[in-house]
């Protein structure tokens, strides 16, 4: 095997051959990064730079004015910003926490327990990977008003609890654990619940991290509930409040506030992803649909 210099995937050290890859991807990376750098700069621009003509990309004298006006604008609208923040944090926390518990439980059963309809349920969930919530916004609206949970936190929380992608990834990850672990515990007299809590949960941390990020992204940015199922302003979420700012952005001054708002929406997502990115990549290795 004279000519084989080793697989080029995942190289350990830098080689000259990699330079052309950097050159090819550079324009795309810049295109992807540009808008994000822009929004960060825009959020910190003082009034005179927002009005500047020609407009400047980078901020010269960064200020927190936009964030301060954001606080003020919420106060003058009658509902304090802190109420929206509380609603969003509360709803997101419950969705993530409960969502993870129910999908790890289901994932364990679908992967390791034996019962009738197991294959049917797996293929049902796999088919639901292609489910697009906006396609059924009308029936969901009817169901939510039918069970009389409009204008409650339930309307924000319940529609987001079952996320097929999350269950699928968790189930695939559990498939990778050896059966012998569970069998040994059951021989020692452990119940299925103990196996789930003491053996499965500690071993699937990467999949849990991935499930957390998927739930978090959906819950944090979820707008359907505030737009359709909840009418009281004080029950709506931060994501909704931010869209009302965006609609005001014909005024140049409003742009800075809207940019500050979208930065606030974006940063938690990014930070969370950076923290768990290693676990996410680990889980994704099991993501294939066979």
């Amino acid at each position, binding site marked *: 095997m004279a000519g*084989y210099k080793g697989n080029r*995937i*995942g*190289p350990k050290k830098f080689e000259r051959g990699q330079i052309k*890859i*950097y050159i090819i*991807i550079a324009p795309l*990376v810049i*295109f*992807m990064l540009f*808008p*994000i750098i822009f*929004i960060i700069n*825009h959020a910190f621009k003082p009034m005179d730079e927002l009005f500047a*003509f*020609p407009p400047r990309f980078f901020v010269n004298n960064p200020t927190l004015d936009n964030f301060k006006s954001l606080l003020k604008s919420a106060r003058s609208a009658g509902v304090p910003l802190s109420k929206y923040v509380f609603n969003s944090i509360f709803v997101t926390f419950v969705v993530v926490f409960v969502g993870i518990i*129910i999908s790890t*439980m*289901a994932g364990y*059963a*679908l992967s390791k*327990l034996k019962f009738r309809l*197991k294959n049917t349920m797996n293929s049902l969930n796999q088919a639901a990977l*292609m489910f*697009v*919530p*906006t*396609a*059924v*916004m*009308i*029936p*969901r609206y009817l*169901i939510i008003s039918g069970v009389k949970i409009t204008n409650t936190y339930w309307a924000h929380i*319940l529609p987001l609890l*079952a996320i097929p992608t999350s269950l699928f990834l968790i189930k695939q990850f559990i498939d990778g654990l050896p059966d012998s672990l*569970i069998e040994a515990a*059951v021989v020692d007299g452990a119940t299925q*619940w103990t196996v789930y809590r003491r053996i499965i949960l500690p071993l699937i941390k990467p999949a849990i991290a991935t499930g957390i990020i*998927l739930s978090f992204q959906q819950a944090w*940015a979820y*707008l359907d509930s505030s737009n359709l199922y909840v009418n009281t302003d004080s029950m709506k979420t931060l994501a909704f409040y*931010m869209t009302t700012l*965006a609609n005001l952005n014909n005024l140049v001054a409003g*742009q800075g506030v809207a*940019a500050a*708002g*979208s930065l606030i929406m*974006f940063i938690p997502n*990014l930070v969370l*992803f*950076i923290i768990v*990115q290693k676990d*996410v990549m680990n889980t*994704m*290795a099991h*993501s*294939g*649909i*066979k």
Partner: protein
Amino acid sequence: MKTSKSAPFLFLLPYFAMFLVFIIVPIIVAVGLSFTNFDTINTPGLIWFNNYINLFTRDSIFMRFVLPNTVTYALIVGPGGYVLAFLLAWAIAQLTKIPRTIVALILYSPSLTAGTALQVLWRIIFSGDRTGYVNAYLIEWGIITEPITFLASSTYLLPIMIIVGLWSSMGVGFLAMLAGIMNGNDELYEAGAIDGIKNRAQELIYITVPTMKPQMLFGAVMAVVNTFNNGAIGVQLSGSNPTPGYAGQLIVNHIDDYGFIRYEMGYAAAVSVVLLLIIWLFSKVANVLFTEKDEF
């Protein structure tokens, strides 16, 4: 292994209860409603396929704008974004660890901006007066003399939606494919080299793609879903439903228009069913392309 009879069902109950109420039942209700003239006020009457017949024969807005826009948008952002995601994943898999992680993060982060951030960001960039960034630079470089109202223009709205759609298309599917490529079997590449594979392109076609078909399929389904999840993008960018001259009207906006603006929910449900069928069709194509055929 001894399993108590009820244990599996207790484990499955909470998830599948939610799954049933918010995913399965809504789909069934959508199909049921699509055969009625439900308008939230009068008692709904059964009108069988009339909604579908009207949709395809009388709804000129659907046939002239919504359907062509949706197909154009979906074909470019779906498969286009998918191919782009795969090629980028493949390219950066050939970099060392730290730059690879940083580039992956940069490529993935736009998909995190979905919703509000996306809306604000691009509306400022494409703002229709001289203070809009694209306008200001085009004027400064002498390409145009008067600012273009990009987001209110029936010529530019759809292309801008496609650019923004592609920009935010490197989501979960991209990560899955990157992981799939990174976990490729080294021995296969070595065997390939012995069998006469000479360059990266051959390696890609004969080894990388066949070994990661399951991830390719997952990525494809995620690409389709992501495309249609962003279906309200035209309304978000232009700030009005219907979009100017229906130029950015996608099928999701049509559902919203009939369902929550005109309250013709039976008709809107028929549009929803058509959307679900389109998504199913796209995923079916992906299935045919990436399922291991030798198993059958």
